[in-house]
């Protein structure tokens, strides 16, 4: 077994590719995660997030490329990795007909430990589900199930944690609570890789990788993701949003217009440096076409703006 390099990256992925028949799940992915990082993979269903996590947790071999976790090679050193990794798969991974406490005891036993030995690590989460210790897992709410699954992934005190879409299908309140727990684990120094289809969750991570159709579109801290956005971006607010949307598509500077919550975001052909002028032009243009009350302002791109721009640049099928 090759010894892990001291002080190296917690995860190193080089040119990893994986296909299932005609489907290219990963088309050459490379990245590195530093120890103690909370690293997010953000992308829709089918982006390749689950395949990458399965390769990194040694449940699947890559077709090409290589990967190391905690310094161990995912192909040669799988047992060393398995003992040190906590993994929460996307689908509900608990035994529905065991109680909360039985599930936890089972996962502890599989890793040759006990709940008592893992107690310090899981304590902040366990406190929230302990009142339901004797309840069957299938009788828990969605948010509670996620917390129990996280306890089960942590009870053997792993050195690194992989969470595959822990908040998918979970309501906005439970999602916030789950991210509060991840922030606590991060404060404790645990390296965590987490995937999500919810773009707004990116801001909770130290760094994120935007992933789409098996390719990494960008890797950066969340507030730096927009740096590569070369176009002027303006937000438009007005009464009849759908009419505005269709009208704005006819403006000669328009590359794309999409609804964003209560606003529309217009990506202009003009460079980012001209965004003030671009906004003034759009406002005047709308006023001349019967929308004098529309509010137009230049804005910084958010993560979804960035994702969509990069996705269109890649001319993805899903964008068709």
């Amino acid at each position: 077994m090759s010894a892990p390099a001291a002080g190296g990256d917690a995860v190193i992925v080089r040119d990893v590719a994986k296909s299932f028949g005609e489907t290219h799940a990963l088309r050459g992915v490379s990245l590195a995660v530093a120890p103690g990082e909370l690293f997010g993979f953000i992308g829709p269903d089918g982006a390749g997030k689950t395949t990458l996590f399965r390769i990194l947790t040694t449940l699947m071999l890559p077709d090409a490329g290589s990967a190391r976790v905690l310094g161990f090679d995912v192909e040669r050193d799988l047992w060393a990795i398995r003992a040190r990794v906590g993994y929460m798969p996307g689908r509900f991974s608990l035994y529905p007909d065991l109680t909360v406490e039985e599930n936890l005891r089972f996962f502890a036993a599989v890793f040759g430990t006990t709940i008592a030995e893992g107690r310090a690590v899981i304590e902040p989460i366990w406190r929230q589900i302990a009142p339901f210790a004797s309840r069957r897992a299938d009788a828990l709410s969605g948010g509670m199930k996620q917390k129990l699954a996280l306890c089960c992934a942590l009870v053997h005190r792993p050195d690194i944690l992989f969470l595959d879409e822990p908040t998918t299908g979970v309501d906005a309140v439970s999602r916030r609570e789950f991210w509060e727990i991840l922030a606590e684990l991060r404060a404790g120094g645990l390296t965590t890789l987490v995937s999500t289809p919810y773009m707004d969750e990116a801001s909770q991570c130290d760094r994120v990788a935007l992933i789409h159709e098996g390719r990494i579109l960008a890797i950066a801290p969340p507030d730096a993701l927009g740096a590569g956005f070369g176009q002027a971006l303006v937000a438009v607010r007005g009464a009849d949003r759908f009419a505005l949307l269709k009208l704005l598509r006819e403006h000669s500077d328009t590359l794309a217009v999409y609804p964003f919550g209560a606003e529309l975001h217009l990506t202009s052909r003009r460079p980012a440096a001209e965004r003030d002028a671009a906004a003034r032009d759009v406002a005047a243009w709308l006023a001349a076409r019967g929308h004098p009350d529309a509010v137009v302002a230049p804005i910084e791109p958010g993560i979804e703006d960035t994702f969509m721009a990069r996705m269109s640049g890649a001319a993805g099928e899903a964008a068709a």
Partner: protein
Amino acid sequence: MSEPAIVAEGLTRRFGDFVAVDALTFEVARGEVFGFLGANGAGKTTAIRMLTGLLAPSAGHATVAGHDVGRDPEGVRRRIGYMSQRFSLYEDLTVRENVELYGGIYGLSDAEIRDRGGALLESLGLTPWARTLVGAIPLGRKQKLAFSVALIHRPAIVFLDEPTGGVDPITRRQFWEMIYETAARGTTVFVTTHYMDEAEYCDRISIMVDGRMAALGTPAELKRAHGVASVDDVFVRLARAG
């Protein structure tokens, strides 16, 4: 003024001692895009099952497209379309076979299925994919197809249960444009979502907390009433208090 698409009065459902839906009273106008929000377990699914005629109310009543959900569930089901994230299309049938199957289920004639099905595939750019298994087409296209299929019998109301879950951000927005166009043609859209930005796209939204409707209004009204900047903040305040 035409009668509302949905009228619910004291609509209630109990399971034993548990009150899953507690006296819902609200109306949805014809052609309205109505967002039905709530935390997991708040009672949304039970309410939708009653409104689609799949589950009888324990108390109260509701009419959907003029039919009483308790007394005439068959009448309700003929006038509505339904699509969910989890189940809508048969993955091991082709695109065209799914269209034909649903057209048949919804009682269309062979000629109607041929005409409307052809137009549907054309408008979605799916004609070249007609003989492809649904399981092999991308999620975004699948969701757009499922939505169109749910409209093939021209229902008065379409129920969309988390239609955009896991879909990429561009396709999600294209999906909402289809919703707007459908509503503009007079079809009422009743939609659930976990994406709070999508709540802003609705004409009105309701937020369920513990079986009750804790809020009902336009997104702007609810934000103003709670003094917050986003529907997400309104949702979290109500659901955490519940």
